[in-house]
């Protein structure tokens, strides 16, 4: 599974992308992934402490914590967008 980070989230975590071996032995959701990332501590714990300011997309589609995940998915975490 590919995880992508953008904007200040990427700055805090220190990288824009990483591959995660996410065991999908039982049905998993974005919530489970966030829980896994938080357990790493450090900047991950800091970033995901307050998820109110974070959006998530799975395979280029906006998602929520309840969205199920499957092997090979691409998950992106980013702040509310500021285009235009």
């Amino acid at each position, binding site marked *: 599974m590919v995880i992508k980070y953008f904007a200040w989230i990427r700055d805090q975590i220190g990288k824009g992308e990483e591959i995660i071996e996410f065991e999908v032995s039982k049905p998993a959701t974005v919530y489970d992934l966030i829980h896994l990332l938080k357990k790493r501590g450090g900047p991950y714990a800091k970033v995901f402490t307050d998820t109110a300011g974070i959006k998530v997309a799975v395979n*280029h589609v906006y998602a929520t914590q309840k969205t199920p995940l499957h092997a090979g998915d691409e998950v*992106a975490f980013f*702040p509310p967008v500021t285009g*235009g």
Partner: protein
Amino acid sequence: MMRLQKPIFDQATEYDQLIKASTGAGGISVFTGLMRPTHLVEGEQHLPLASMTIEHYPGMTENVIAQLESEAHKRWFLKAVHMVHRYGEILPQEPIVFVGTSAQHRDDAFAACRFLIDNLKTQAPFWKKENLTNGTTYWVKQSTKDRELTKKWGFILETPRL
């Protein structure tokens, strides 16, 4: 039609392309977004910017904009839609985004143009970082006003809360 690119674009050239795709149209509506030259600090102090860096999410950005364009065609009778959005380094007063629509009637052209820029601002994955002349940088925050303008249209792709 939407193009994402790093280099600066010429508004007249883009407008020409829109006209060429708009045979039979009765009206053309365009919006160009420019980079403001200052960073606004609370208390109304304006600090000068050296540049702005725009990040995007290749793949998703195009997806979202395509969905907005598709919705615009559903709501209004449009002849053509022509959009350009830059990413990378932008200099003060340079154009960032061009949204142009054409239709038989001006109501449709105006409304679709407004719909596209309002929704692009809070739903298309771009992030702006301001690079001040004093050396500091600042990730622009999504504005409440922009969110309200998007809500008005009732076409929400983004999810409210993680």
